[in-house]
């Protein structure tokens, strides 16, 4: 593994350190993990896009119900297919790192939860979220009535301006008062 870590030269390393919340060790580890996933002929290249399927095989993401959303949010590909470059991958780890601020974390969380990308969490987004959280097989999901009650409760608690959706600032307001969020919104390699 020593050879792969040396491929990340010193300048790039310090720049990544400057641009992310990650420490040197974390960046080196991330690079090792990323290049281990690359096909043999591209080993070490940093500008290669890894397809989403490959990324989702990582144990850190595999059992996460939001894993596809995470890939889509951090992917910079056009059109967005959820594939990640090494830098996207670093962005992901930076946002999920221990050092990242509440602002950053809540912002990305909002975008991960906003599955239709419209900038607000509407009823459909919330419903989709709850389904992801509880599992989607028939006996494990809430029934329609329960779901309705739940979403009404959520909106009642968080939708401050009563427009029927949760926008970013409302979301951040709610999240800032939820003490567990920062400790649980974390992926460490």
């Amino acid at each position, binding site marked *: 593994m020593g050879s792969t870590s040396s491929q990340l030269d010193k300048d790039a390393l310090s720049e990544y350190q400057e641009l992310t919340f990650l420490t040197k060790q974390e960046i080196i580890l991330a690079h090792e993990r990323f290049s281990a996933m690359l096909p043999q002929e591209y080993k070490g290249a940093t500008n290669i896009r890894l397809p989403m399927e490959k990324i989702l095989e990582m144990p850190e993401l595999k059992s*996460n119900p939001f894993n596809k959303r995470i890939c889509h949010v951090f992917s910079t590909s056009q059109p967005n297919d959820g594939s990640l470059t090494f830098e996207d991958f670093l962005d992901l780890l930076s946002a999920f790192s221990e050092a990242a601020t509440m602002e950053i974390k809540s912002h990305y969380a909002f975008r991960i939860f906003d599955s239709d990308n419209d900038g607000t969490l*509407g009823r459909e987004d919330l419903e989709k979220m709850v389904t992801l*959280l509880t599992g989607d097989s028939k006996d494990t999901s809430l029934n329609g009535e329960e779901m309705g*009650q739940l979403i009404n409760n959520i909106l009642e608690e968080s939708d*401050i301006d009563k427009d029927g959706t949760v926008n970013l600032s409302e979301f951040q307001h709610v999240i800032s008062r939820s003490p567990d969020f920062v400790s649980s919104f974390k*992926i460490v390699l």
Partner: protein
Amino acid sequence: METDQVFFTDYSGRNPLLDQMPSYQASLNRGMTAKWRGTRRGRFSSSDSQKGAESSFRRNEAAEEMELLPIYALVQPMAEKRREKRRRLGKGQDLSRWEYWKGNYVFRQMRENAKVLQNHLQLWKKDIRLIEGMFGTGILSYFYFLRFLVMLNLAIFLLMFAFVMLPMIIVPHTSANVTWSQSGGGNCSSYKIGNPRALPNFHEQITDLLSGEGFMERTYLFYGFYNMDKIHFPHFTYNLSLAYLLTTVAYLLFSLIWIVKRSATGFKRSLVQNEDCFQSFCNKIFAGWDFCITNKTTAKLKKSIMLNELRIDLEEERVRQKIAERSRTERLRIYFIRFVLNVFVIGVLAACFYSIYLATSLSQDAEMNKKKVNFLMDLITEYLPSIVITLANFITPVLFSFIINFEDYSPSFEIRFTLMRCVFMRLTSIGVLLLSLWRKITRCDDAFCECGYNPDLYSCWESRVGQEMYKLTIFDFIIIAAVTIFVEFPRKFLVKYCNCQLIKFWGDQEFSIPQNVLQIVYGQTICWIGTFYCPLLPAICTIKYFLMFYIKKTSLLHNCRPSVRPFRASRSTFFFLVVLLIGLILASLPVVISVAQINSSKACGPFMNYTTSWEVLPIAVSQLPDGVQRFLSFLSSETFAASFFVVTFLAMFYVIALARGYKKVISQLREQLTMEGRDRQFLIQRLVIAQRRSKFNPKPPGRSSRSPRSPSYHTSFAYNHPEAMRLADSPPPSSTQV
């Protein structure tokens, strides 16, 4: 056509104009990535020309705001961040600020290095990561708590070692003279070691090792061994008895400060806001998923936990409604049941306490009689109080959690109430043990009252208390290990390999965090009490908790499934510390009483020359220079105490008032936010109408092309906001046809 698209609400029901509002832009620039902006722009691509002016304006504002953040804290993809960095670098005139960030960066790197070093030194980093990945943050907080206690005990041990043990250890190797504590002679001063044995055989040695008697009694382990009063080094005199007392005070204070410091964040939060009452659902949904979880089965479990929790909460909501509708007879019935059950609980507790008292008396009497039956019986009588306490602690939680079902409380209150009962049980049982010991010690039948304690039976009562605490600690550890090996492991084995339906129904052991926490808090309380009487106890506790970490980890990984009742990490950490704090207060009570009130042993220990241990302090103070003496006596005077209390109370009231103020401000801001949201909606709708009208008015012929859309829009709008319609339409325009 272009304009129409701009002002038309998009399919999500939001008006794009909303996005141009300054408030929204501010949040956007703080966060949105360019990519996202790109997709938005893509969607409203036709509107770009229109937005041009505004967006350049807001971009300036955004840049201003962005400048305030360090680059790594920007919510943008790497390429954007790099561009931003280059831009900041290139900006010559703004060098000072850039340098500021650069300095910050260097500072950050330094901090990072320190953190990496600290991380390397951290205990059990890998194990904790593993547990986090398998079970999530709730159970992790238990292990953090365990680690904290290891550190705390280590610190207390180092304190004890440095100021009490070390001077004694080095004396023989230096030229120092020692003033031994001298017993004044008489009845009180004959020291009889518990079980004098000429040639102890093996099993007696085992008994001694487990009970702290015999050869163990005259070691550094117990209070009685520290019988030096002062050590005269060539250049100064070390007052060991004073050091002993001050170290005791210091370790209690030190523990208090550390615990308070750790719980400060949790406390602050609960002071300003009680989150549970109005955003429990949001917490569960938005912050419910543990992104740390890497284990597949745990993820599955987490999902089912989530589902259960949501169902329970929804149920609870319904129950709450039902409670509100409850009739008077029903209410009376429930209160009656609760009353009866509470009386029952008190009865159970009283029975437990009485049996602890009996056991202690029995065990102490047996010891005094020095009647040897056989090895096992001796050991059992030695350990009788510990056995009874442990038994009580095993049975009562089960009983309590059964009883609570009939009391008809809300589910979350049920958990808390059962817990409070268990805390009470655990900690008070130690209190009862000490109380019965105290009664035994201070009971003087005839002429011995001059000593203030019973010198015939307890010639060195401090050591005896130390032995009791030592036994409790050892027994606690043995029980924890034994339960893991002999109960949990076979259970797992049975559940795994036996097809019996009943056993399957029984299922795997649950790792219940509250009970486990109570267990270690109980151990820690004993340790705090015992450290005065048994100065090496913190070292034993450090080792105990160290091993316990591995025992619990193994048991968790191999024998247990996580509890179905979830436990939130943040709340639990605070809760653990509160329970620990109760334990500390309870522990310092007997220590303080015995130091200040009960006469110290005349036959052993550092305080032989003094009536009570506390006396050493006034005597030491009286030898100090005059000025210092006057200052110290001022500190201990009523005047100072009263004024100090007044100042403290004032400060406390100030802080409480501040907290109330913040609470109020929060609710006001909330209200304001609501109002502003409504205002914004209202204004925008007015603006839309105004703009539509200004578009229609200049070219009435275009009307026909839009007519299919506009009426529907207007009607829906008019339906929601009739007053807006009135305002907007005050001079009825020709174009609108409602």
